[in-house]
């Protein structure tokens, strides 16, 4: 029942925050958001699952009751976590709390709505990562969009309407494509399933129950469904060339919303890719190894080169997310312990580090009211602590050893290089790894020009060190990044435990 409690408490916190007066909302939201943090840490501490939740593993905190009837299918309220979702639940709660604190300074109007929506989004995200029934999962999946839409559209920058609509429509169409793909699988399975529980579907597919549907043979149906779901999730990740909603959304979104968007919402896409495409249709995935690896490399290099061309600090970090998510795709297609495990680890690591970078840019923006590289120089002279953490975070992003990003990237590179899905995987790996040079290029250039050199600022604002509550979330994220980098086993052990069954899957058709 703890998962239900976790989600319910978060919903309640959102409701309470909605009705509070604006001036208490921020502090109250922070205090209330500590409850899910404690809850998720308690879960992590009590965690006793083994294996993969979809493949007959022992699920932690499982609830499975019939909720309602839909035609021939029972809809179950089925939630639970395994080694893949547990780290993401912890990431979600911690990042939300920190994002809430980072919103204290920049959000100055309609606070109760803002913080309420943040908590509402958290509740839905927790649902996405814990739901194990497709129906339940899909409701949460769609319901995440709504608060995000408002958070960008109401509190965003000058082009917030455009960005919000674009985000909403683009990801909703993607959901539709994905939905069609998944449903065609369900139909293909015919009578072999009686519910939409993901484990049941995954195991039926594994048992070779997929029949023909709409004139397609089982193999062709699997391919069509795979492609449809891949496109649907790839928009969310985003995988180039389906990424263009992302920079617009990030640039317009207020900092705390960017933190959530890059830190957690993108991981919905990679999480779903792993759960659906790579777990349910492993044979199809292996058959598509070449195009998927190409997309991964393209995302890494293309995203990084685009980041190099940007002058807006936030756009730089936004495009670099495309690059970092490319690594996740590369790791997933590797089908090795380190590859898929590293990809999952990267979801957490990138969540922390991109959150850190967006927050750091936000802290500078709070003071300077600009994010353009050319508008300032030598900021480190006036904001030494912020600059110091910025530098540390940037090196984390570059994959400095003993920080979480390096662990994730190294796992992925190692797993992808020794992958057997394709003869040429070492070449793809080597090509994707060039991202670590480009990322160093754009972050070092950006830091040199904004943080260092003689102090210069063209605006009218007084540049002084940021207040404690702006810097504290950065410090926490930095600390977590280092802890995970020094001791990746904190999550990597449970991740591998859940990932290994996926690798052992044979072909079903």
């Amino acid at each position, binding site marked *: 029942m703890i998962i239900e409690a976790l989600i319910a408490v978060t919903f309640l916190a959102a409701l309470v925050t909605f009705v509070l007066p604006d001036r208490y909302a921020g502090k109250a939201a922070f205090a209330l958001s500590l409850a899910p943090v404690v809850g998720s840490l308690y879960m992590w501490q009590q965690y006793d699952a083994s294996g993969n939740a979809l493949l007959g593993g022992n699920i932690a905190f499982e609830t499975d009751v019939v909720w309602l009837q839909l035609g021939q299918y029972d809809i179950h309220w089925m939630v639970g976590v395994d080694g893949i979702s547990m780290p993401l639940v912890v990431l979600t709660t911690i990042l939300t709390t920190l994002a809430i604190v980072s919103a204290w300074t920049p959000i100055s109007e309609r606070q109760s709505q803002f913080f309420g929506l943040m908590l509402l989004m958290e509740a839905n995200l927790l649902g996405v990562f814990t739901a194990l029934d497709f129906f339940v999962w899909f409701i949460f999946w769609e319901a995440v969009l709504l608060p995000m839409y408002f958070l960008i559209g109401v509190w965003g920058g000058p082009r917030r309407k455009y960005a919000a609509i674009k985000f909403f429509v683009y990801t909703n169409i993607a959901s539709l494509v994905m939905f069609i793909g998944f449903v065609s699988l369900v139909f293909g399975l015919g009578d072999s399933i009686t519910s939409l529980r993901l484990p049941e579907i995954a195991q039926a597919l594994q048992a070779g129950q997929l029949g023909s549907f709409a004139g397609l043979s089982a193999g062709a149906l699997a391919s069509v469904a795979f492609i449809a779901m891949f496109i649907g999730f790839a928009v969310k990740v985003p995988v180039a060339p389906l990424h263009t909603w992302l920079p617009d959304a990030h640039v317009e979104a207020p900092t705390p919303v960017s933190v959530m968007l890059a830190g957690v919402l993108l991981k919905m896409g990679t999480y779903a890719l792993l759960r659906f495409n790579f777990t349910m249709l492993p044979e199809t995935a292996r058959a598509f190894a070449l195009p998927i690896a190409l997309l991964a490399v393209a995302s890494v290099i293309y995203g990084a080169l685009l980041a190099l061309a940007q002058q807006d600090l936030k756009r730089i970090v936004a495009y670099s997310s495309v690059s970092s998510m490319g690594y996740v795709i590369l790791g997933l297609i590797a089908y090795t312990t380190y590859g898929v495990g590293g990809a999952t680890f990267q979801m957490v690591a990138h969540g922390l580090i991109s959150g850190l970078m967006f927050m750091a840019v936000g802290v500078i923006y709070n003071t300077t009211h600009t994010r353009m590289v050319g508008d300032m120089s030598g900021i480190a002279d006036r904001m030494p602590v912020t600059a110091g953490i910025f530098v540390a975070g940037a090196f984390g992003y570059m994959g400095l050893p003993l920080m979480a990003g390096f662990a994730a990237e190294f796992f992925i590179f190692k797993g992808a290089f020794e992958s057997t899905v394709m003869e040429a995987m070492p070449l793809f790996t080597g090509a994707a790894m060039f991202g670590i040079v480009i990322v160093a290029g754009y972050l070092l250039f950006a830091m040199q020009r904004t943080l260092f*050199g003689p102090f210069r600022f063209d605006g009218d604002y007084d540049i002084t060190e940021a207040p404690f509550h702006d810097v504290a979330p950065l410090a926490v994220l930095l600390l977590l990044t280092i802890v995970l980098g020094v001791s990746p086993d904190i999550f990597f052990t449970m991740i591998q435990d859940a990932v290994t069954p996926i690798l052992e899957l044979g072909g079903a058709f």
Partner: protein
Amino acid sequence: MAGILDFAPAIVLLPFLSFLIALGAGRYMPKGGALAGIGATAGSFVLSIATFFAVSGGQTYNQHIYTWATGAGDAVSLDFGLLIDPLSSMMLVIVTLVAVLVHIFSLGYMNDEGETGLPRYYAGLGLFTASMLAFVVSSNLLMAFMFFELVGLCSYLLIGFWFRQQGPPSAAKKAFLVTRFGDYFFLIGVVAVFATFGSAAFAGPEAFPVLAEEALHGEHAVNTFLGMGEQAWFTVVGLLVLGGVVGKSAQFPLHTWLPDAMEGPTPVSALIHAATMVAAGVYLVARMYGFYALTPTTLGIIALVGGFTALFAATMGVVKKEIKQVLAYSTISQYGYMMLGLGVGGYVASTFHLLTHAFFKALLFLGAGAVIIAMHHNENMWDMGGLKEKMPVTYYAFLSGSLALAGIVPFAGFWSKDEILYEALNHGLGTDGGLGTVFLIAYAMGLIAVFFTGFYTFRMVFLTFHGEPRSETARDPHGFGWNVKFPLAVLGVLAAVTGLVNMAPVEDLTGIHLTFLHDWLDGGISSLTAHHYLEVLESGVGAGLHPAGIGSIAPGLVSLALALAGAGLAYRLYNVPEPVEHTDKLGSIKTVLYNNYYQDEYQVWIATGVVQPISRALDKFDQGIVDGVVNGVSSVSLFAGGRVKRIQTGVVSNYAALLTLGLTALLLGLGLLGGWFA
């Protein structure tokens, strides 16, 4: 086995502790954290000495200390471990000694000069030392890579220490970026080693050089990739790892970061050049020499890169105006010699040069630092002159270092550089085929570089210390205290005597056993000994080297003669009361040399003239085409023109309705298609 070696982790942890102390509490401490740093590095030095003696007593230590990532099932675990053998224990002594002296010197260079930001400085030094020490004792290639990168981070932080100026941040960025480019290949190499051997350990039952050797003997199979045979694949892997070495050890063509790195404080330069960052590259090759010894192509490339870099950098050193620039190019050149030595099978010779160079180069940088203090931070040698009388301690120490650098008998550099050249000649003449020719070409380049080295070294000495003072500050230099003189004195003595540990020509001449370093590097773990490497080098599966068996005296005399000729020319031209810039006579050649053969220009051009336009073009493509398609699709479909506007200006409930409608439509579709409502 409990013993002093169980304290080895403390050698690394003490400087790390001083990093934490300086960072956290440095501003409340009397010398900005310097004392913690000195105490920590001194403690590490003492422990290193104790370790050194323990190793000389025959002990070695190869222990797993921490599992960084546990592999589930068949997946390998990634470990941290300590490997203490003759090579690493010698390096520990070098690094800790130079680190202590640099810390002490910093009291004079930084504290006494009223610098701000001292806690940051000492924190950087502490972390730098700790990272390098951890790198030195790494028991496997992954751990080595990780600390190699941290060394790179620290160099970034320290080169860019004066971040309020324009130059240092730029130099710091360049140093990290250029070495990162090399490390990219290194990281692929690390991954490839894991994929090939399933282990990246340097020593022990799963040592990858040993596995590689056994695989070549056909004793068991290893994974190779891309359809390559074992020999070819090992060559590829070796070259990949070499990428990191070329970057960090500033070998052509990735040497360009190093001269710029002179923007950092001078004590930092001493640390980077003598004992940490730049040394790391060469040390890595020595550490996994058993692997390189198997692949003749790699050895040939190492030798050529080294020989070429030695000569190439030495010619640039000839025309520089700033004292630190001369030293920077001499560093590149000297590490070129070490690479040359490793390439031609002179493992002991190169290690020897790593040892002597560490002392004399630290000495020269600290000496230059003393000069720079005296000159009120003016580094131009043409404003100096006549400093000999005013600062005798510095002068004699600097002279000792210069004699060592130029390779004048009996100073340290003579013995080590000479042995490298001897190995090149010996193996070049003896080895058949193309590899022997490559070695001889590399030898020739190294030999010519000796002349240039002698010249630029003494040009620097004479311009700085001899003749008449050429500026007001040189007439009345700034004084300094014991904290500057003490490190200089210690290193001055070491630069003079360190060569005595391995006097191969004298052994040849007298028959008395004098090659103690050979004995030292022959001890310890059997797969990591000098004679094991020699066996591999000369075996059929290895590189197939053959010594010609020539004596070491004649080649030694040749290189000594060249060094003296170079020094003599410098004496003629520059040891005069009023020297003039004779290199002007070189005309356009000087321009080319002064601009470093336009190496920086083409690398900057690649960054700003190629990569940046590409990225900007891609950005246009992304905004115009990729995003244009997205916007185009949306505007011709549901959200055409005015409708978008209407939706955009709607009230909150409209959006909610839109979403709800969407969801409902989806569910209805699902239901209808599935016939659920039937």
